Structure formats: C-alpha cells, structure tokens
C-alpha cells in the first residue's frame, strides 16, 4: 500500500475492487478532509476484445457475441447490430418483427432503470428502496423470461427478424405486469421527490448545467436530466419507433434528483409504448431471408440504450465475416462528467455521482495502441490480442 501523504490531502482509491462498484474500475479521489479536490478515472480493467473477436466470426455468430457486451442492456446491442447489418444487406424486416424488437427494448429499459434505481438507493444507504425496487423488477424479469426463455440475454434478435412471437396469453401477462409496475413506479417517484432524508443526498448534488452536459458530450438520461434534447428514439426513430413514437423526458435541474426523476418518468413512457405496441401489434411474418454474405459497404447504426446513445459502425468486405465493427457505448461518453462533477463535492457524494450516470464499466473498456509518430502500421490478430491481454493482466496482478 502506498504511504499516506503527510499533508491534509490524501488520495482515496475507489476501485478496482470496492463495494460501491459492481464492476472493476479505478477512481483515484484526492480529498482534503472530506472535500474532493481531484478525481481521476482509469479505465480498462475488464477489456474483453469483443470488437476484435467479431472479425473472426461470421455475421450470425456475432449476434451471440455482441449481445454479451452488456449484461443489462443485452438486447439493444443485438438490435443495433442487426439494424446495421440489415441496412447493409438492404433487407426489409417485417413490421411485426420490428415491433417486437421495440417491445423487448422497452421492457429491457424498464428492467435496467429499476435496477439502477435500486443500485443508486443502495449507494445512498437507502437499502429499503433498493430491496423494494429489485423485488418489483422481478416482475419484468419474469415477463422477459416467459417471452424468450431467458432473464438476461434474451436472444430475441435474428438477422432479418426476431425469434419469438407475442401471443394473446403473453400479451395479457405483460399488460398485468405493466399495470402493477406502473403503480409501484408512481410510488417510487413520490419517494425520490418527497423523502426529505433522501433529498438531502440528491438535491443540488452533482449539478451539471446544460452547457456542461453539451461540452462533456453526455448522452441518454444523464444528458436529458440537464435539459439536453438528446434521444435517438425521438431524433432518428429506428425500428418501430416511427409507428410508436416516444415522448422525450427532460428535466432542467441537472442534479442527481433530476436524474432520478428523468429515469423514473421514462419508465411511464415505456409502459405507455409497450401498451400501444401490444394494442396495435402488426400482423405478419417474424423474419425474412438474409444473405449469408453481406455486400461490401459500411454503415452506422444508432439506437437508444437505457443508458444513452449506443453507436455501431459496421464495415463489410463482401464476405461472411465483418471487416470491422466499432462499438461506442453510452458509459464512455458519460464517464468524463463524473470526473468533472466530483470535484468540490464531499467524498460521500462520489459514489452517488458515479452511479448517477448509470455506469456499465465492462461495456466501455477499450484498447488503443498509441503510435508516437513512428508511422508503423500494425495489424493485430485475434491471437496476438489474446496473448497481449493475458500478459497485461498478469502485469496488473503483480
């Protein structure tokens, strides 16, 4: 362990292993007494080489691997990928499949936001809210399981459609579950906006102004809580969002309370969209034929994950494997805001500010090779990357 400096200010390491973090990440917080004077983040503890791995697998296998980038928003990754590949191949997906994709995406948003609510309450030491919101989250997990057979990685998507249909019985189950959750969500909204003790931990904490949110490039609910009009579902509707439009949820305050309010209000919007989809589910096929080789070209696919904009760049060279897939997850866009906002707050607020962006660390780890002007172009093979990763983590462990 490093020695503590003799001056009043010293550094508190939050992570890579720390009870506040559910995944490995390293925040080095310099505090003067209890006040944070500097915050540094070090990413890269859970790099898995997913992008590289996709280059040696075919288009179909990649759905499986990309769905596992995130354990919470798994469906949206597969959706972004499938939408991109279908665009490249010029395939028209049946409307029923698009609607079911959006249905599952909104159910996933509900499960993600309820999960976040619990985690955030736990960071504030409000374990009762944590337990209650996770209990209610089981409702949506059960619904997802009865739809797809899985609680986490639903594998609903296919290239060219979806695997699972929604029949009347299942629709009734979903209606019932949504009705129950809507009541509970109203209760949680009341709690986070009126519980005086909880408000002491959220109101006016980690305030990000609109211009800050713009400059820091934040996305998703974090940006919307600072009144930034940024929601891919609204700005560039994909899938069935054109037929089932979403209303954007904004808040002007930009503090932690606003982030709670925005996420909880988005739940109501999700409930509404799910009901609308179930009411007007288009009839027709679930999937269409996809070519095994995708014609040469490149495309960009943007979707709104529960945490914000998810960006896929897909390049095909005309074979059955992609030339390059680049993923940008929302957490990496929001991460800088944490480091910026933490300064000046108390140490006790740091976990709350970290969790306020709803971070998903293993999604955001990237590896970059910096070439200091030597002009060498170096291609990494999957095997080389794997060996490098093993060496890297062995070095870290020492």
């Amino acid at each position, binding site marked *: *362990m490093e*020695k*503590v400096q003799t001056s009043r200010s*010293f*550094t*508190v*390491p939050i992570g890579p292993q*720390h*009870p*506040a973090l559910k995944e490995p990440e390293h925040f080095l917080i310099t*505090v003067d*007494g*209890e006040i944070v004077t500097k915050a540094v983040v070090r990413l890269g503890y859970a790099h898995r080489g997913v992008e590289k791995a996709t280059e040696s697998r075919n288009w179909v296998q990649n759905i499986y691997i990309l769905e596992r980038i995130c354990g919470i928003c798994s469906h949206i990754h597969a959706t972004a990928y499938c939408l991109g590949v279908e665009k490249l191949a010029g395939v028209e997906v049946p409307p029923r499949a698009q609607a079911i994709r959006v249905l599952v995406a909104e159910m996933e948003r509900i499960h993600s936001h309820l999960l976040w609510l619990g985690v955030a*309450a*736990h*960071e*504030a*030491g*409000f*374990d*009762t*809210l*944590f*337990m*209650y919101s996770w*209990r209610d989250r089981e409702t949506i997990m059960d619904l997802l399981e009865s739809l797809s057979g899985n609680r986490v990685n639903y594998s609903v998507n296919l290239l060219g459609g979806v695997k699972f249909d929604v029949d009347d019985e299942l629709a009734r189950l979903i209606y019932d579950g949504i009705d129950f959750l809507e009541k509970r969500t109203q209760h949680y909204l009341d709690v986070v906006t009126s*519980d005086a*003790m*909880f408000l*002491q*931990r959220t109101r006016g904490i980690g305030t990000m102004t609109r211009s800050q949110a713009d400059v820091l490039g934040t996305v998703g609910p974090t940006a919307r809580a600072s009144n930034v009009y940024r929601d891919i579902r609204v700005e560039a509707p994909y899938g069935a969002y054109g037929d089932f439009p979403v209303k954007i949820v904004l808040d002007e305050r930009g503090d932690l309370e606003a982030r709670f309010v925005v996420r909880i209000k988005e739940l109501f919007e999700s409930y509404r969209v799910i009901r609308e989809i179930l009411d007007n589910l288009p009839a027709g096929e679930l999937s269409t034929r996809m070519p095994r080789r995708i014609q040469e070209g490149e495309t960009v696919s943007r979707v709104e994950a529960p945490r914000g904009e998810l960006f896929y760049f897909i390049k095909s060279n005309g074979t059955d494997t992609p030339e390059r897939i680049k993923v940008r997850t929302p957490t990496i866009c929001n991460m800088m805001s944490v480091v910026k906002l933490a300064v000046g707050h*108390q*140490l*006790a*607020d*740091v*976990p709350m500010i970290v969790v306020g962006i709803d971070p998903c660390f293993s999604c955001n780890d990237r590896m970059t090779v910096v070439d200091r002007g030597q002009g060498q172009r170096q291609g990494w093979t999957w095997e080389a990357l794997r060996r490098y990763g093993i060496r890297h983590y062995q070095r870290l462990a020492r």
Partner: protein
Amino acid sequence: MASDIIKDLLVSLAAILFFPGGLFLLLCGLLYEWIDRKLLAQLQNRIGPRWFQPLADVIKLLAKEEVVPEEVDARLFIGLPIVALAGGLTAALYVPFAGLAPSHSFNGDLIVTIYLLSLLSLCLGLAGSNTLDRFSLVGATRTLTQLFSYEAPFLLALLGPAFAAGSWQIQEIATYTETRWLLLSQPLGFLVAVIGLMGKLELPPLDAPEAETEIVAGALTEYSGRGLAIFRLSKGVTLILGLTLIAAFYLGGVSNPAFFFLKTIALLLIIVGLKALFARLRIDQSVGLWWRYGTLLVLIQWLGMFLWGGVMT
C-alpha cells in the same frame, strides 16, 4: 469465615463471568443482533438470517486468522477491541440488567457508565487511525466526529431522568422511574436518547462512519478474525446496555425480567423501524442534525423541566 469469603468471591465471579454480566450479556447481545437483522430483513422484504447466525458469525470470525497489517502498532491493534469489550462489560456492572439490581452502585455511576459506553467509539476511532489504510482513516475521522456530536445531547438526554429523580445513581433513578413513565413528561429527551444510541452504534441513517459504499467498512476495514469478532460483540453489549438504560429511565423501569425484555425489544423495534426508513446522512449532515436539532431539543426539554419545577414549588 474463610469459606464465606470464598463463597462471596465465587458468587461475584459468577455474576461477572456468567450471569447477569459476561457470557449472558454477550449472548443477549447476539440475540438482539439477530432480532435487529431479522426484523430489518422482514421490513425490507427479505428473509433474513436464522436465529443462530450472529453466534455462527462470531464463532467463524474467532476461528479465522487475524491479519495484522504492516506498519501498525500491533499491541494497539490487538488491544483496542479488548478494551472496547471490557468497557462495555464493566459498564454492565452498574446497569440494572434483566430485572436484577446492578451488582455495583455508587453515587455518580451514571456518568461513569456513559463514559464506559463511549469507550467503544473511542476504540473504533483509535483502531481506525492506527492503520495506514485510507478507508480506515476517513472512517476513524468520521467516528470521532460523530462521537463529539452525539455525545453531549445523549448525555443530557440521560441526565434528564437523573435530574427528575434527584440522583446520579442509576439504581436510585431506576427505583424512582419504576412508578413513572418519564416518556410522558420528557418525550424530547427520550427521542434524543434513542437517536443518540443509534449514533453511538453507527446504525443507519447515522452510519456515515462505516458507509459501505464510500469507505468499505470505515475504521474496521483492516480488521478480520478475532479483532472484528470482539468489536462486534462489544457493539452488541453496547446496544443492549443502551436499550436497558433508556428503557429503565424512560419506559417505567425494568425491575421485572419480563418487562425488561418486553420494553427493550419494543425499543429495538423502534430503532429497526428508523433504520429501514431513512437514507444515510452524510457526516456533515449528521453533525448538523445533532448540534442544530438534538442539542436544541434536549435544552428545550431541560428548560421545560426547570419551568415545571418552578411552577410546582
């Protein structure tokens, strides 16, 4: 003659080691810890531990290796938990426990007891600042900060009944309150005393000194094995003694063993309810709570008592 002395000695030893002090107190502490954990779990929609879980935890911890970190004073590191437990057990001698009269009693033992109970926080603070671990250091600072903020209101809240009884001897106060529910005449003092006990034990929402999501386990981060077990035991002892004192002073006495358990457990229910209801306060907020509201409430209580005393005479 000699046999009488030996008999007396044996009886006192048994009183200190087994009943009502010593072992019995420790086991009661574990029982109350279980009630606390089980109830909190039920309130939070969880199942909660089985009845022997706190005991199993202690046995497991005692069986584990105790890691003494580098660059700490090993004697302090090992000694502090023992001092904390000893403080709690010594305080038990002056407290009317389980319906029995305290085994020792002298004028002014209330103050001694309160200070012995504070040894726990003090030892926690010292244990935290003894290590180089930054979580421990922050935790120790917060523990001591909290000690300085809750201690004065807590003391004043316990002195209210002493003032009413006209004595600083726990036994005499307990006899005085046997027929009177001071909760009715000193509600503010009762409130401050209960919350003061929560502050002393670092229970939520006053658990900033051991806020898991910020500083891991606060002052106890480096403790494992025996030291941690003893600290936990002394928290149990402090909990039960604090409950006893408040029940004896404010809830109409504890001379009947059945009433003792009934009243202390009822008090525990209130504390668990408060634990479940609130989000954690930051350390500056809890200090503010104590000095801005806690102390003020007790002082209002005292003012009321003086005025009432003036009116009556």
